[in-house]
């Protein structure tokens, strides 16, 4: 799932400062799940904007709308009337949703209200951790299903650096696990520690051809 977090308020206020009528557009998929841009966050942000602006005597009409997936044109089309009404759109979707919105309404300024940060999973209530860097050349078969590219602070491919701390923690952030300790333990459990002996050449990040494009075989 894509994880995002709301942009700092100062930045948001500045983005919408010139506009009187702003559509705060949420997305009902990933960003709802990670508490960044679902219907609740839309309501909160819209309310904040109204309060902030009315306190300054510069009222704003914050229209609220949330679509199921903002990265789908057909679903975004459902709120086209609300977009038409607004001077600008503040999208709380991931970067993909923001761009879909911008592409569909080319005459409207569409601003991101969140920063899309990573692909991850929930670790507990309200806590998400990064699991995948979307590198385009998956490495997980060699590392017991633990990604060294994002779960090692340094993205090392050939075992840990010298900075692994007591209890298998990372020297960069002692709250985080050392990715390579996780890999070692996992492989140990599976009796595949021999994999640790392999040497992997530096990863060819050019495999990530930008912009990425995937054509499903059967389509």
């Amino acid at each position: 799932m894509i994880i995002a977090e709301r942009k700092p308020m100062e930045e948001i206020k500045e983005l919408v400062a010139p506009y009187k009528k702003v559509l705060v557009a949420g997305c009902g998929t990933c960003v709802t799940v990670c508490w960044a841009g679902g219907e609740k966050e839309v309501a909160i942000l819209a309310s904040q904007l109204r309060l902030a602006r009315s306190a300054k005597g510069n009222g704003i009409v914050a229209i609220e709308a949330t679509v199921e997936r903002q990265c789908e044109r057909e679903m975004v089309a459902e709120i086209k009337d609300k977009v038409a009404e607004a001077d600008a759109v503040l999208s709380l979707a991931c970067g993909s949703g923001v761009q879909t919105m911008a592409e569909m309404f080319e005459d409207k300024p569409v601003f991101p209200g969140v920063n899309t940060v990573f692909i991850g999973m929930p670790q507990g209530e309200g806590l998400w951790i990064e699991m995948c860097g979307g590198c385009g050349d998956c490495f997980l078969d060699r590392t017991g299903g633990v990604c060294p590219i994002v779960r090692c602070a340094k993205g090392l491919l050939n075992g840990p650096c010298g900075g692994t701390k007591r209890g298998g923690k990372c020297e960069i952030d002692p709250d985080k696990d050392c990715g390579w300790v996780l890999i070692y333990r996992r492989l140990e459990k599976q009796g595949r520690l021999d994999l640790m002996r392999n040497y992997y050449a530096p990863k060819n990040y050019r495999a990530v051809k930008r912009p990425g494009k995937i054509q499903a075989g059967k389509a």
Partner: protein
Amino acid sequence: MDRRIGVFLCNCGGAIKNIDFDIAAGKAAALPGVASVDLSSNLCLEEGREKMLSRIKEEHIEGVVVAACSPEFQEHIFRGVLKEAGLNEHLLAMANIREQCSWAHEGDVTEKAVELMEMAVRRARSLQPIEKKELPVNKEVLVVGGGFSAINVALQLSRIGLRTTLLQEEALLGIGAEESERFCCFDTDSMISAAEIDENIEILTSAQMTAVEGKVGDFRVVIRKGVEEIIRKYGAIVLAIGCQTRLASDFGPELRTGGGAIAGPNIVSQEQFCSMLVNPNLEKEPRTICLMFDFSDENSRFAAVATLNNALAAKKKWGSEIYVFYKNAKVDGQGMERLYREARNCGVVFVKTDASPRIAVENGRVGIEARDTFLGEDISLACDVLVAEELYLPGEGTGTLNLLLNVRRDSRGFLQDENVHLYPVGSERKGILFVGGCRGDSGIGSVLADISSVVMSVHELLSAGRIPVDVEKVRADPQKCVACLTCIRVCPHGAIHLTRTDNSKEVAGISDLACYACGICAAICPAKAIRFQGHRDEEIVTQLEAVGKALNGCHVAFCCERSAYPAADLAGRLRLHYPENLRIIRVPCAGQVDVFHILKAFEKGAAAVLVMGCEEGACHHITGNTRAKERVKYCDMLLKEIRVDGRRVAMFNLSPNAPHKFVGAVNEMIKTAKEPGR
């Protein structure tokens, strides 16, 4: 919505003096949706109720507003009138014009009364009916454990006709019940044989519970017995897994020989000492015995009973010299005072000492040195046997079971969250109960009382074979739910689970049976998919709109109906005055207050928003007040980042009998908050 609203005003037999009821009635009649306004002076009495009933019928009223006393008192009575009139009882909104208006302020408060009525009328217009239904429940009960409490619960449940399964990890029943037999004169053997021949009791020994799904009335339990896996269904689960003991201090190996025989230094536990007492082949009777208790945990009643009983038994059997070292010797349990006196009268010497005595081995005996508090002198003596102090700890499987059942433990690890509302035997999940040693050590008297409480609770839940519920009072809209699992993670009652809709989409399913309608899930749902009837956004926002319209610099208090709301009522009854521009919105739990509701209150013109819930550790919904606190903190941050100075939001914890605290909190907030520009 054009629901016809009937407003019933009551002056409470003249007890509401500072409201002009004619003006109030006139203004109420002009409110949108209001079809009739009636004045009464005794609405809650039979005469008033009959009049109300006939007016509802005459005027074809579809929603009712009662502007009178606090809903804490008569809401149920008025609901009854609605029911009698053929209306859904949930289409009632009350305006508390007595405790929270007339009595709380000085001077004429007609205006405020009208505003409170407008809030109630708006609420009544947006309320939705809730259907009532009875759901069938499984009447069988699973009792985990095989000791004194477990067997007794099973036997007593059998007596009221409920079938139980006694699930015991050990191979035999009654393990752990020896103490009750020895100390409390219960005949364990006959208890066990009674259970064995009881048709309503199934005994599964050497078996373990490995998985539990479902909810009250319908638990699905996986039991492993050897290699076999049994799946059974129960209506309730009672945990009676007891506790375990450990010597309070870790005596070095040089101080211990263990066993039971007296050979050289001997430091034993209460249990080992019991075996010595009944051992016919004891090599040598101990001439001097010391016992210790209550230095580490002076609230341990088990330890006190065991010590007193053992001292007495040894005195009677061997006539030995016996010294009991203690710190405070609390003997407040059933029969304990008697036991203590008897021991003293038999010649047992009690030595009060503030610090734990020093223990050493001298010439094959145990030497003890301590300072006698009463004599103010150091004493030292040598004994043949030292019965060391024991600690009572949570039973071995406690940690696994609490995870399995998704229930909390207390700070010592025993099986009950330290929340006064769960006492004596409840858990935060309906249908899961605790009894006996697993709840922490208490005297046998309270264990017996707990057994009765468990039997009563189970009887109440299951005996009828069905439980009345409000159908879908709290419900996740399957269209909006994104199955983010947030509600499932936060529900303090384990009432929400992942389920599939007809078209197989995964969504949050809220069990009507297990739900306590606290609203914590509704307040946190990021998709705003959970709607809580009676407290939906619409119902809250429409009330806030009335607040905003009428007031200059108004303040809103979201008050938990279990604490702050009754505290506000009490403030009115005591005529403790607070500013008139406070508007109280009654919520089922502070945890139901949504960040969005708070912001909306500010948007509608509030200068201060107070969220008021139960005292910490005493929330009826376990985490409601702590969540409210976090949310208020978050909301404060949201306000700070948009720099709307002067507006204030704060959380207050108070108990229902704290009217002064309520008034203090309100005054403090109102003093410091102001709308921008004022």
